[in-house]
């Protein structure tokens, strides 16, 4: 698999895919996309990078243990669900803040935070499986 061409394009491909995954995540509420798919794409990116350069490189590049990332994602989503308590609303109620910065409406919401949590979980878990499988071959 680790042909020269593959090794050459792999970093660019991976980087592009990760960027795309973030894009898919962020636009998810209005266009096809969201945390789940974004996470799947990002995990694939890491897997490709791992195949090209070996698992250790990916692990170093990631900075954090992928499973810890997944754990953090769940933590984030759960705490996000709990946060509605501050607004006097029930669990997981979507709260929206739309500040206007330089004339641009930026829709921030607990819903988005939740989706980011989903993204982290999917990236972390799938990357962890992929890396472990690649490593043990």
């Amino acid at each position, binding site marked *: 698999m680790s042909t020269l061409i593959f090794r050459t394009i792999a970093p660019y491909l991976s980087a592009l895919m990760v960027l795309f995954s973030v894009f898919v995540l962020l636009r998810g509420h209005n266009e096809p996309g969201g945390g789940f798919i974004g996470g799947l794409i990002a995990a694939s990116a890491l897997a490709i990078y791992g195949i090209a350069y070996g698992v250790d490189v990916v692990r170093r590049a990631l900075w954090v*243990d992928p*499973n*810890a990332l*997944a*754990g*953090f*994602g*769940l*933590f*984030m*989503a*759960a*705490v996000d*669900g*709990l946060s*509605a*308590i501050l607004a*006097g*609303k*029930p*669990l*997981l*109620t*979507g709260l929206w803040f739309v500040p206007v910065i330089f004339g641009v409406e930026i829709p921030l919401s607990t819903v988005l935070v939740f989706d980011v949590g989903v993204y982290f979980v999917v990236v972390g878990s799938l990357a962890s499986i992929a890396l472990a499988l690649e490593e043990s071959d």
Partner: protein
Amino acid sequence: MPHRLLPVLLALFIPSLAVAAPSGGEVDRSVAMFEGATGLIPWLVVLPILMPLIGAGLSLTVRSRSSVQHRIAFVALLFGAIAALALFLQVSANGPLTMVAGNWLPPFGIVMAVDPFGALLVLVTALVGLAGLAYARGDVDEAGTHFGFYTFYCLLIAGVTGAFSTGDIFNLYVWFEVFLVSSFGLIVLGGRRVQLDGAVKYGVLNLIATTIFLIAVGVLYGFTGTLNMADIHLVVAELDGAPIVTVGAMFVMAFAMKAAAIPLHFWLPASYHTPKVIVSALFAGLLTKVGIYSLMRVMIMLFADQGSMFIPIIGWLGVITAIFGAVGALAQVDLKRMAAFLVVSGVGVMLIGLGYGTEAGLTGAIVYAVHSILAMTAIFLVLGYAQRLSGVTHLTTGTNLYAVHGLAATLFLVFGFAAAGLPPFSGFWPKLMLVEAGYQTGDVFGIAGIVGIILSGLFTTIAIGRAWVLVYLRPPQEDGVPDPEPTLEPGASTRPFALALVALAALIVAMGLFPSTVIDAARSGAQGLLDPAAYLERVLKVE
């Protein structure tokens, strides 16, 4: 893989055009959402789930620091347990409590709804979870922690609690999956050969059950157009009986399998003796009870009259399960396998109560469920403790623990007699209540149920008595079998074990001596299942 089916199910929600468009004009939120503020009290419904869930996430986040994980899990479960206690008191005093996730009007949002039945089980789950965690401190090694023991543990508690608290049938499925996957994670920790064999059987058979459940949910949604349990109760009552029968049968099969009713019990004795003791103990206490709970919730409350044809079938399965489970226990030489069969036998007793279908029968079954959670967890834990002290795992070797370690011996006897239904321990009351409920039905099945309960009690007593005599009373060297090595490391503290066991013993004895709290809660739980008026009112016309 049930995950392959999930998108398909999701597709059922999707209208033909998946893109929403603004309709223009003023937005009237009141048609879709509750207006007023939510107080703090409804949060009690979700905190027992949310706390362990947060604990699971956080403990995995700090994966590299094993020492912190136990503390995180403990704090999370402690808060969860406090919330569960408050929830139980609240529900006992004021009836069902609900919270709608996302604030969407029922039946459109996911309702978490806890009635006395649910609250009782949530509380016991939380207590057992805490006690088990104390034990885990001594039982789980560095590698286990590193590969997520505490994460799985918290998730398991969250999943089971979620199943006991949800008012949405698809959400129930989600919690089933949560505790199934986390239990699978727990069962493979350790990686010994027998563990993996057990894990494969556990995993495959449970996946089949869960998948059947998922398909049943999908079909039920197709029939009713709703997932809210209260709403389903109303819609199902209107349906023509014919097609709904198959759906009901699928639910019965899925839950009977989760509950390990004979002849769908195989996964349980195949896997319960293989993992770490704390894992087996938690499984024994909690997992089958979720099956029983769901059977009651779905077949008695949701299906009501439409499900009445299944109730006797469940009852007869219960008779078979109660008797052959105990017979299986008698056949075992491995102590943990014996305990696994005792779990099966207990499942049978609960199914008998369900099969009576009367308030008395259901009350007895619920009280038995509480007892079974406590006693079955405890019996596995004490076997593990004894094994650490003496190294003995089979009836073939004596330990003399009676003389050298009175605490372990006493606790084994307490838990064993509790399981056998002897007074003054927790198992006595439900047995009594179920026998009385059996007479009250006044039919053949009533008597068959009593025979099942009595035989189960008798065989269990014999099995426990044999174990006590052959393992605890008998000195080791008698048969020339070489002394097994204790697995407790020299100098290691036995305090985590003793603490957990004594706490459970206190609960079991307390339930034996002061049964009223549990019986009262169980009775109002049973009444709620048979006549869910209060539940419906709280769920569908909240506030």
